């Protein structure tokens, strides 16, 4: 029995969705062609179009002569229109003939879609190259289409197997397919060259399928709405596929059959549209016992409301919230990549404040490690790779550091995401009004170690200089990967099988990148040439040096601070390539007459209007990216950030947003993207919103309903921590308190802060084994979070691990000292030292931020003053008990006035320090075991664990052997290496 119910939710209303947006350009939205919107609408339209009707069966054919009031009734399916021998209709090449050939499999890779064709007959792979396909069909002397002797046409004879066909019989002579092709040929086999018709919307009924049992089935009906106003049932012309046929199998006619419980999508393909239809089958109601983790709160935040709606449909109950110990570890590792200190864990556990999780999140977001860790992630996505930057700068091994620092300083200042990206996309090598000489001077200083000098520059042109980012096609692919989370490379050779992009779209998009020249250290804009030659002359003393000698001479000069020439990014807006220019000059010399120069053009993805390349196309690209109607830009980053916190994206893989790979929760992704834009691309807002949700704070413990779910955010799913995080965790857990605190506060040696920068051809062994991103192939899979045997071997038995655990500067040595005769404290308390260092780092950070603030125009300052002051006050709260803090206003007036920390000597402080350490009265060894647990697993051991550990230490040859063994065991637990 068919049991399909319409399960469309009204759009979720979220508070304040009408706030005005200040800086979005109005008309750039209009530019978005109907074509792009058509395909997006095809999806968006799915839940809206048909709010009430339940359509479990195909709509019965409606004849075109029936009157239909206001709505245009769709023409009945082609299979019924051509059912009778007497059918006289002439089909359309784009709307009917090519889709039919596609449906029959003719243009598939195995058949005529192959790049060499088959039987000398080649069609464009997956279609949509109509003129090439028409040409191939009409090719003279092939007999494929014979308008004079229609029935002898091979496209009729072959698929009916009247003429031997390697691909076998595709249809019978009397069938509708035959008549469609025959009528088209008989009417002259027409195709209007250069007039691709545009499909406005693909409507699918039902828009969403909910199965009740594993024995249900339902047929899809697909209605095409064309821009010319015609509407047609095209079900027999579509191709169908399922994203998981164990849940929903779909056959070639669009009949969907139910299987396992769970949710997935079936995908419909027609013309250039690819449209997913959600299918789900809920679990039968679950029974829970006391062992299982079950949520007991009603969702209130938008994220949780939207997740709950999906879970309700599936019959899944989420797990309860995680413990404080799990939270402090999880939040610190996910937000900053840094394992929290023993002191921080203990303070958090002892804190009774009801909003302590929120406070912790805020604290973490304000810490320098946040900026460092996310600069590492942004470096992954933007492709910061030493190998690819080789010889781009005249100073070696500094490119990746400049890149990292540029990102880091912006994250530290919480520069809006779109502005960060603008600095990359529209990057120029010179600042506005900066001379070439000044530019070289600044860059020489920056490359000699003054990384901040580079970070303060507006643009980050290194992105454009990478060796694997030079050809226009490479740039099109890399640009789409980094900023859109889209893989368009398929369209480089043929129609994208899972998205609307045609080869033409790809080519038009690629052309935009052709005028941008960058990456060659010797290339400068024409106006800088003279100055460059002078600098070079000075360097070489006029001697002629070969390539290698010259490079070495420049390296050497730069090292000693001599200003050396740098390459420039410049945009060739003369509308003509250098090569063409030379040819023209040569032709002119010969006295040939020259045709006028044609200015090349390109197109932004999905935008019909051509962009003339007589000026730098990048500002227009940037306007398009940050426009609120851009379907990818905000979603791509929101989804990547989400994936960091949940181990799986809402769209997954995170770099593969396409129409056939829809989000597991579209409403959730839409909400986050829309709000992110409304909050002016505020990254910290995004992090806060996500980490404050119940969804993020759920326990890893499961219940009967969610144990097998991995895609709907109903519990915490343990994942192996990222390479850099693991690397640092080991150093922090095994290092002495002083060493660990120094690492945490200075960050310089931490892998999450680019402290182990990769140089050409060499990477750190452990980071490599744990799958650090190679940042090379435009793929988020360049990073691997999968475990491996080699990783286990490393943690158990690598000499680095033994050295760390037994190090003189390690925690085991420190613990031994604590246990033995108390070593005289040499006047300095390492904890106080560390605190001071951390506070000083904060001071520097704040001063920097205020300098940035003070640099802005007065009007902008006024606008931001209140927020900036609040942030300042909040940040300084943490150190105000211990140190004197100037007021915001005085600091803005003179940012340099706060150049060192002055300790407070008040009673307040003493009172605060009077709080007894809750564990300090424990006997020595027990306290050591506690410490070992806190610094690795961020929790106290339970009684039995404590007992086991102490017995082990007591039975060891010496306490130091015992403590070493305990530390070794703890860093080798699963609990250490995974998130929980």
């Amino acid at each position, binding site marked *: 029995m068919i049991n399909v119910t319409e399960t469309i939710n009204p759009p979720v209303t979220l508070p304040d969705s009408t706030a005005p947006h200040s800086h979005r350009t109005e008309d750039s939205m209009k530019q978005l062609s109907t074509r792009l919107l058509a395909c997006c609408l095809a999806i968006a339209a799915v839940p809206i179009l048909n709010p009430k009707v339940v359509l479990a069966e195909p709509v019965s054919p409606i004849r075109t002569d029936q009157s239909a009031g206001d709505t245009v009734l769709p023409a009945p399916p082609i299979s019924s229109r051509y059912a009778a021998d007497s059918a006289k209709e002439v089909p359309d090449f784009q709307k009917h003939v090519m889709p039919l050939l596609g449906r029959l499999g003719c243009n598939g890779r195995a058949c005529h879609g192959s790049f060499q064709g088959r039987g000398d007959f080649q069609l464009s792979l997956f279609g949509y190259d109509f003129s090439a396909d028409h040409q191939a069909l009409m090719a003279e002397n092939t007999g494929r289409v014979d308008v004079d002797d229609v029935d002898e046409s091979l496209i009729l004879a072959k698929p009916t197997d009247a003429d031997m066909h390697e691909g076998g019989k595709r249809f019978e002579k009397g069938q509708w397919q035959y008549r469609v092709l025959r009528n088209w040929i008989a009417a002259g086999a027409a195709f209007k060259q250069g007039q691709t018709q545009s499909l406005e919307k693909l409507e699918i009924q039902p828009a969403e399928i909910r199965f009740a049992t594993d024995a249900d089935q339902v047929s899809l009906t697909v209605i095409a709405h064309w821009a010319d106003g015609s509407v047609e049932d095209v079900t027999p012309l579509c191709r169908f596929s399922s994203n998981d*046929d164990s849940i929903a199998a779909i056959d070639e006619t669009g009949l969907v059959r139910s299987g396992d419980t769970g949710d997935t999508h079936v995908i419909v393909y027609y013309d250039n549209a690819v449209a997913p239809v959600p299918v789900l089958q809920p679990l039968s109601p679950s029974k829970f016992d006391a062992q299982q983790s079950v949520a007991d709160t009603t969702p209130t935040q938008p994220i949780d409301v939207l997740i709950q709606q999906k879970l309700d449909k599936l019959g899944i109950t989420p797990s309860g919230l995680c413990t404080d110990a799990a939270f402090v570890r999880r939040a610190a590792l996910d937000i900053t990549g840094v394992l929290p200190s023993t002191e921080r864990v203990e303070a958090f556990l002892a804190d009774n404040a009801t909003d302590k999780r929120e406070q912790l999140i805020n604290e973490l977001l304000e810490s320098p490690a946040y900026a460092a860790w996310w600069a590492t992630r942004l470096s992954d996505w933007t492709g910061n790779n030493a190998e690819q930057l080789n010889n781009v700068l005249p100073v070696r091994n500094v490119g990746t550091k400049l890149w990292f620092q540029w990102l880091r300083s912006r994250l530290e200042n919480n520069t809006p995401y779109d502005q960060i990206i603008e600095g990359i996309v529209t990057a120029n090598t010179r600042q506005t009004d900066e001379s070439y000489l000044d530019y070289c001077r600044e860059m020489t200083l920056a490359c000699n170690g003054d990384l901040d000098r580079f970070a303060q520059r507006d643009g980050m042109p290194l992105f454009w200089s990478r060796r694997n980012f030079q050809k226009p096609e490479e740039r099109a692919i890399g640009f789409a990967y980094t900023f859109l989370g889209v893989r368009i490379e398929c369209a480089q050779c043929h129609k994208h099988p899972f998205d609307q992009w045609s080869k033409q779209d790809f080519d038009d998009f690629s052309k935009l990148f052709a005028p941008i020249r960058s990456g060659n250290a010797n290339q400068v804009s024409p106006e800088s040439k003279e100055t460059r030659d002078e600098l070079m002359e000075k360097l070489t003393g006029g001697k002629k040096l070969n390539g290698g000698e010259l490079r070495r001479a420049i390296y050497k000069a730069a090292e000693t601070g001599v200003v050396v020439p740098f390459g420039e990014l410049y945009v060739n807006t003369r509308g003509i390539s250098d090569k063409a220019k030379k040819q023209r000059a040569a032709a002119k010399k010969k006295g040939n007459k020259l045709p006028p120069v044609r200015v090349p053009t390109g197109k932004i993805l999905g935008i019909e209007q051509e962009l003339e390349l007589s000026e730098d196309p990048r500002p227009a690209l940037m306007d398009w990216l940050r426009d609120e109607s851009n379907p990818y830009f905000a979603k791509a980053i929101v989804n990547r950030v989400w994936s960091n916190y949940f181990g799986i994206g809402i769209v997954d893989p995170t770099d593969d947003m396409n129409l056939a790979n829809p989000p597991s929760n579209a409403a959730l992704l839409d909400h986050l993207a829309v709000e992110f834009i409304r909050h002016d691309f505020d990254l910290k807002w995004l992090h806060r919103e996500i980490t404050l949700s119940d969804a993020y704070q759920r326990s890893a413990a499961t219940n009967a309903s969610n144990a097998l779910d991995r895609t709907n955010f109903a519990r915490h799913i343990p994942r192996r921590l990222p390479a850099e995080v693991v690397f640092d965790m080991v150093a922090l857990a095994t290092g002495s308190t002083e060493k660990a605190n120094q690492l945490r506060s200075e960050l310089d040696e931490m892998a999450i802060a680019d402290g182990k920068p990769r140089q050409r051809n060499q990477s750190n062994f452990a980071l490599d084994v744990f799958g650090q991103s190679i940042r090379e192939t435009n793929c988020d899979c360049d990073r691997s979070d999968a475990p491996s045997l080699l990783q286990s*071997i490393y943690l158990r038995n690598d000499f680095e691990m033994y050295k760390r655990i037994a190090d003189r500067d390690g925690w085991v040595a420190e613990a031994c000292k604590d246990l033995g005769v108390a070593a005289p404290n040499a006047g300095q308390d390492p904890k106080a030292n560390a605190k001071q260092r951390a506070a000083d780092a904060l001071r520097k950070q704040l001063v920097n931020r205020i300098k940035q603030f003070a640099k802005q125009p007065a009007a902008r300052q006024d606008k931001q003053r209140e927020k900036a002051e609040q942030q300042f006050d909040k940040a300084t709260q943490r150190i105000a008990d211990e140190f004197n803090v100037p007021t915001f206003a005085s600091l803005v007036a003179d940012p340099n006035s706060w150049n060192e920390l002055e300790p407070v000597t008040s009673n307040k402080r003493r009172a605060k320090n009077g709080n007894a350490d809750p564990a300090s009265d424990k006997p020595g060894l027990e306290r050591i075991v506690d410490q070992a647990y806190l610094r690795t697993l961020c929790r106290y051991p339970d009684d039995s664990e404590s007992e086991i550990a102490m017995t082990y230490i007591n039975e060891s040859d010496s306490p130091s052997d015992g403590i070493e063994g305990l530390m070794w065991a703890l860093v080798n637990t699963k609990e250490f290496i995974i998130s929980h």
Partner: protein
Amino acid sequence: MKLHKTCDGLRRRDLLKVGTLAAGGLTLSGYNRLAAAGQVAPGHAQRAIFIELPGGPSHIDTFDLKPDAPDTHRGTFNPISTNVPGIQISEHLPKLASCMDKFVILRGVSHTLAAHRLGQEYVNTGSKPIPALEYPSYAAVVSKERPSDRDIPNAVAVPKASQGPGFLGIRYSPLETNAQPNFGQTFNVRGISLPGGIGIDEVKRRQSLLNKLDRRFTSLEKNDQLLDGLDQFGQQAYSMITSSRAREAFDISKEPESFARQFGEESFGQSCLLALRLVESGVRFVTVQLGGWDTHTDNFSKLKDNNLPKLDAGLSGLLTGLQQRGLLESTAVYVTGEFGRTPKINSRSSEGGRDHYPRCMFMLMAGGGVRGGQVIGESDDTASGPRHEGISPDDVAASFYHNLGIDPTLEYDSNTGRPITLVRDGNVINQLFA
């Protein structure tokens, strides 16, 4: 380490496909069952070496030459005779020509997936990729069906393997060496030897402490590939560390120089030597990669100067070496790329290149019950497709498993409880073993 990059740049390492919530099984339909296993001769091999040629090697320039094809297709290489009368291969594979009696060339192997990743998934599993789940690599299946002793890895990949364990779970992943051995130099996988100062007894004590303390996630393990995999790797790491067997097996410098030299001095040849040592020491499955076959441009000079000499020396060394050690009869060898290359030469570079071409390709098989010195299958006049019915990757996979004594119709429950036939559509090629 430099990995060979293919033109579409895809190397998805963490593909985990999920969606279904079902734990119980459902009845299987639609999968073809193979003919009863009793109809074919039993396999002999106890272990296997799988040589992957990622990028897709040209068939018409290597093992399926067409000297009479038009200039648009034939290419610049000439055929030479082998030590088996009537069989000819490329002039740039002279060493393999002299041991043709030890292996079989499969010609006219044919499929339809022309993207690197999809093609690799196909030829490395024997089942056409489907979106809902990922099939396991041969290495993973052999690790599961024929586990090695604890102190030696089930499977090793030198330096990496392109196919993961799929739904069988991370625990069946091979040990990836991440590095390749060099001629005459000691080779060791870092971390498998005990460093000075730590005794075996101490390691054992620590491990027993770890076993007692590592309990927090026990209840989640059965449903979680990650936790289960970590557990498995931990146990195995311990076994390997506490035994000398693994590190002895990895150290190719222990081989006599004259023996090592017949593999050639390139890293690929030495990786083959390592593979031989490893299987001799009890590793069940070794994957060796030789990349660089994605010759869209400059097809001929790349093959002649680089790829073919490496393949020729390494593979002939391996086959000869296996025989010298008496291992050939118990070691199944399978060599394949993900597809062939267009027989028609393109004009993308001065000398021309060849593009992806799954419709016609070659594969090589040797060892175990395979009778060397044959060509099975045939391509048409221009190597554009099989002359008769083509051989499918499924057939070759079924034969490979059969050679290893593993029933290719074996059924597994996937991680979601769905029953999956090991090789869906393959038939054992009896002629291989005849």
